[in-house]
């Protein structure tokens, strides 16, 4: 019995299928690569968005902090005078607490975003109590003074201590 030429009938369809398969396989690899890149990009962006959302939730806090700096931070006069003022303020305090001034020097001026700082290095000798009173006077954020480094060790007679510290004052940048 002569069977119909079924294979022949399907050849065009199979050819089209093979061509489609080859093209779509190539397209699929491109598509998958693009999909992978996009997924990584999406993950990265979502992480950034989460962080940024958290920051935006704290916007009020940061606004208050910026306002506080703008309201209370001192402004810098002339650079040399400012440094001298910081050193003089430190020395004045030391004298008031009867501390013996061993060494003194002006520090560097550091610039930060919207702020700058001026420091002075002082080495004094005195009782622990006087020293604590003196240092405590500078630990007041309202005046924008702070002690950034401190080194204390007993003197040879063990009755007093020798202290070296860096006093720093912050100023807001004047535009």
């Amino acid at each position: 019995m002569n069977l119909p030429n079924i294979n022949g009938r399907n050849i065009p369809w199979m050819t089209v299928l093979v061509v489609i398969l080859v093209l779509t396989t190539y397209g699929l690899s491109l598509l998958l690569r693009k999909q992978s890149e996009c997924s990584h990009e999406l993950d990265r962006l979502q992480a950034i968005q989460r962080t940024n959302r958290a920051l935006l939730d704290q916007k009020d806090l940061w606004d208050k902090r910026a306002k506080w700096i703008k309201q209370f931070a001192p402004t810098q006069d002339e650079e040399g005078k400012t440094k001298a003022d910081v050193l003089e303020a430190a020395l004045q305090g030391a004298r008031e607490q009867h501390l013996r001034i061993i060494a003194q020097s002006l520090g560097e001026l550091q610039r930060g975003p919207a702020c700058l700082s001026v420091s002075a290095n002082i080495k004094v000798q005195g009782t622990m109590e006087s020293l604590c009173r003196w240092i405590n006077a500078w630990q007041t954020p309202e005046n924008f003074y702070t002690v950034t480094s401190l080194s204390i060790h007993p003197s040879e007679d063990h009755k007093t201590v020798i202290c070296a510290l860096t006093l720093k004052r912050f100023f807001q940048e004047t535009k």
Partner: protein
Amino acid sequence: MAVSIKSLQNDRKNTGTNALILPSLSSPTSWDLWKVSNGVLTPIGQRDPSQINRRRKGSILALPTTDVFCVSLWLNETDQAKFPSMISLQLEGRGFKLSEGSRAFDWSPVTFENGKALVMVGILPNKLLPALLAANFDWFDAAVRFREYTEDSLTIWQEQGRLCLAFTRGKQLVHFQALTENVLNPSTIRDIACIVTSLQMQEVLKNLKSIVLWFKTDPEGSKSLGTALSVNINSASPPKPRLPDRDWTLQLAGTAESKKFHHRLQWRDRTLKCISLAYGLALLFILGHLLITLHLISSINSWQQENKLNLETIHQDISTWEFLTPLVETKDYPLETLLHCATSLSPAGTHLTLYEQVDGNITIKAESQNIRLADAFLEKLTHEPALSDYHWVRPQPQVLPNDLAQFEINGTREPTKY
């Protein structure tokens, strides 16, 4: 005694047949398609059998008279269960080669008389036209059986370009045959006369009363035929087809194999289509996922753009605040940390020889009366809540001969981040 044939036959009005394909009587090459509904035939149109959906169940392809050979047989048996084997033997006796496993013939009882049965047998040829095979029907019927004929008559018509004859015995179709020519001429009239004589001699034809012509022919030809057979000749239009009372299921040898082959092809097609569909769906899914991802990226970028100004301001504020960290982080004031370190000293036995704090890193040099006191100091320092941010490291203390332990402790912590 005649047995009621109808009582022996199946009612095929409820067999689920939904379409019938018959060779057209009006055109030698086309086929008529009829819709079957509750035993009623409604014409649908004309087409080629290969155009019929091969998967359509319940369709009947009725072969033209030229493709089915008819033999009318008297059987000395009225038990129809024995008919197939008897018919098979008679056909082989007459020289028909029937393939094993095929159902190349089917039959219909015409009458039962005196313990004998007259049956009309239709036999398939060994080969059919490729177009008919391609239609992939499970079985075939004979188109001649789907017409209604006059009682005790010979009906002649043109089908597939040839003259066809159908004989009735009473109301039952008893014999049919296709001639080689398609017009009534002396040759065909002689052939018809021979066939009639032969059938009468076999007592297949009992009483031929009339001849009915379903086609137009010249009067002389019809007159000659009437004279030759000594019966009246009438002309009429072919009647509308009707369903026979019983199915014929003529199968070519190898039809089952062909069906399996087609079945495998169907499954292959279905599998390929399923794979294609799954592939397409996967592509769509990936494409859709990509589009959604791109949309999300776009929306996040838009969101970032909308909040860019606010975020820049906040980042500026954070940078400024980080610059002010030594000022605003009061818990890291040197005097505060010195106080917390001093509270970790034992009541007696340990004293500091150096305290140094630079940029959040603490260096402590101390002496203890013994190593245990040095360890106790480190333990307390480590567990001091206010100094929990620091990581303390103490190299091995130096123990002097008088048990005095000199040691150094370094405390480091990560810079404060906002």
